[in-house]
């Protein structure tokens, strides 16, 4: 699925739409935290490929993995490469061709890439990589301006059911996570996804501004983007889109009788052409990193939801995510 801006903060799609890219290994060396040798070293070095510019969500996950792995001594050194653009679709082909068969290569990726390869009809997709582990996920939240007539999710759903066109909903780019959530909701309401009055904004900031200013009836975005506005009472959260509640006061869509679960997940993938043993070594590495104290600390600091999943369950999850995304995108006429 596609929430470009959040993953690739580099592009304020207004002016500088090409996300930037940098081989940032040099400067990254600036902030090396002291290494506490403890666990046994599993890899002397890992090549981490980030198909987005520095500073965004994928880059953040890659560097957090580096931080945890080096602190616990699981990996000696990391080498980073960032190639941003088009929801990861510029970087992905490069990773596939240049790292084929490399057992020490990892690529960060996530739900955004599933949608991006479908809408852009690219010849390659995440299916060409070797899934290693899902690490984190973030649920979406459906919000309305503080002075909105909609007090709860039921009222909003009723309004959507009656006339979707009259309820404008702000979110990230068309075909992205936010759009897909709205599409899934409309499908469950017996409506068509393409009836949605979805107003796409280039990124979280402008979309938030539109909801805060009451320009639109509602908004859908990642929880973290709106959590502070919700706390300050500037917008009202009606529902979240995960399996469980994030905030005890905000119900999930599922418990409100709307069977929609959609999150923006992020994980790591291996290069094509590696064998089962090599793949298992990467899975073991991620399992070990996930078990470290340092990783726990990072999850709490950044407010990331732990969504660790490997092996067959991860593959099944990927398959389902792809099928769901494709069905909505087809309904929207985007795939």
């Amino acid at each position, binding site marked *: 699925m596609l929430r470009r801006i959040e993953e690739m903060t580099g592009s*304020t799609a207004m*002016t500088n739409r090409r996300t*930037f890219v940098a081989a940032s290994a040099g400067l990254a060396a600036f902030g*090396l935290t002291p290494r506490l040798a403890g666990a046994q070293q599993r890899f002397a070095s890992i090549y981490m490929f980030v198909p987005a510019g520095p500073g965004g969500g994928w880059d953040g996950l890659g560097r957090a993995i580096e931080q945890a792995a080096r602190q616990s001594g699981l990996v000696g050194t990391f080498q980073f490469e960032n190639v941003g*653009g088009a929801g990861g679709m510029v970087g992905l082909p490069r990773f596939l061709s240049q790292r084929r068969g490399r057992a020490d290569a990892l690529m960060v990726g996530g739900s955004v890439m599933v949608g991006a390869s479908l809408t852009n009809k690219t010849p390659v997709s995440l299916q060409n990589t070797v899934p290693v582990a899902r690490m984190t996920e973030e649920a979406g939240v459906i919000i309305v301006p503080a002075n909105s007539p909609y007090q709860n999710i039921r009222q909003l759903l009723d309004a959507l059911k009656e006339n979707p066109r009259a309820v404008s909903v702000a979110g990230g780019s068309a075909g992205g996570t936010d759009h897909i959530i709205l599409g899934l909701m409309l499908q469950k309401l017996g409506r068509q996804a393409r009836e949605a009055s979805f107003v796409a904004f280039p990124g979280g900031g402008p979309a938030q501004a539109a909801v805060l200013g009451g320009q*639109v009836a509602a908004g859908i975005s990642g929880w973290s983007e709106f959590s502070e506005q919700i706390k*300050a009472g500037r917008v009202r959260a009606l529902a979240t889109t995960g399996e469980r509640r994030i905030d005890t006061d905000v119900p999930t869509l599922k418990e409100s009788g709307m069977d929609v679960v959609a999150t923006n997940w992020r994980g790591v993938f291996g290069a094509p052409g590696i064998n089962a043993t090599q793949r298992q070594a990467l899975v073991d590495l991620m399992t070990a990193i996930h078990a470290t104290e340092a990783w726990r600390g990072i999850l709490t600091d950044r407010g990331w939801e732990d969504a660790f999943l490997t092996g067959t369950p991860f593959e099944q999850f990927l398959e389902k995510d792809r099928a769901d995304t494709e069905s909505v995108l087809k309904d929207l006429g985007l795939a």
Partner: protein
Amino acid sequence: MDSLSGLALGFGNALSLANLAWALLGCFLGTAVGVLPGIGPALTIALLLPITFSVSATGAFILFCGVFYGAMYGGSTTSILLNTPGESGSIITALEGAKMARNGRAGPALATSAIGSFVAGTVGTLGIAFLGPVIVEWALVLGPAEYFSLMVLCFVTVSAVLGSSPLRGLTSLFFGLMLGLVGVDLQTGQPRLTFGVPELLDGVNVVLVAVALFAVGEALYMAWHHHAGKQEVLAVGRLMLSKEDLKRSFWPWIRGAGLGFPFGVLPAGGTEMPTMLSYFAERKLVKPEYAQEFGTTGAIEGVAGPEAANNAAAAGILVPMLTLGLPTSATAAIMLSAFQSYGINPGPLLFTQQAELVWTLIASLFIANVMLVVLNLPLVGLWVRILKIPVPQLYAGILVFATIGTYGISNSVIDLVLLYALGIVAMFMRRFDFPVAPVVIGMILGPMAEQALRQALTISQGDWTVFVTRPGSAIILGLAILALAGPRLYAAIARKA
């Protein structure tokens, strides 16, 4: 905490030796990256993010603010000297600035842009400190309909750069509009004019286009028309502002700063629109005796105004970030992610919960601003020496510089192909007297106007009257009509009288 005691606290924190050193490092780095086209403050701060693991929050943010302001100063230097804008906010500066440099007035152009940046940076930072929270509430009232009307107002500015033949000017404009269409359409998620090239999915970078049209096109044209044996060296002329320059720059600085700051605060504002509007305003308001300098030998007003607007807008961009936690630009988004790595959640409560950090940051913006003008003014003498390089070598250098900078945008060979393809187009445009500025204006405004139009119409369920029934939008459209028809009406009345 009121603004004054906040500022006092902030200066108390920022004026430590270590923090001053961070500010100086930031200003220096920022100036350097501002000079290079392609590498901007957002990328630099992103690369510096890992220092948040080991440096205090205050130190890191002072460094980042130095980079941010420094890049705004540095961007104008290459615009003026080499006709190669370092970032999108200084594209307009190149219009008059480069002409001034070609006519022996590089020194005053650089000086007016440095002092103008200082004036506007100070006005803008004062704006953050005293007006920020109020003005941002007004900014939120503007929706897509108003933004579309603002773009219409900005399109009026094209008339200032169309040149002698409207047909040629409009052809250039439409070429720019077409370039702006390339990439994935935000409202439908569908690729347009990408021809299956994944690198084009995110569109064509506007700095790349500006560099191709201004610098590469001119260099190729020079190569085409160069006569061997004749060694020309550009005149450098006097370095500092004369009294007259100062007088001519003063009001453009103030107007530019006044225009830039509110645009920066707008969630979908940015630095490009105010620089265009400032250029248009200065061109219309210039004293008749200097009017012929515009577009010919280079008018100082056309550098002072846009450069001030650029810097004030840059300050304004920080307002929604600090007061509401809204990242409205790439740089702000990266700074917000830096807040998060300190466990600070930027949002509407930032000003109250992290008052000390925020005020230190604002104080350090003032300090960075002073540092930058002190750093940059003496450098004017050094920079203009670049122009003493003989023309063939100078243009060869510009080509190398433009190529490296463009490659730096995304390490993509496709970008280089585009750079030279557009450069060749620009060479022919110059040969056949097509102005290149409308291309860039069309490319910046076109996509913004299109998205705002479609957002507004989605919200209004297809009702076009929304642009005149919303008061804000109607007022802005009225201004646009006034700006377009006003000068003609005025001339007609003046002729009768």
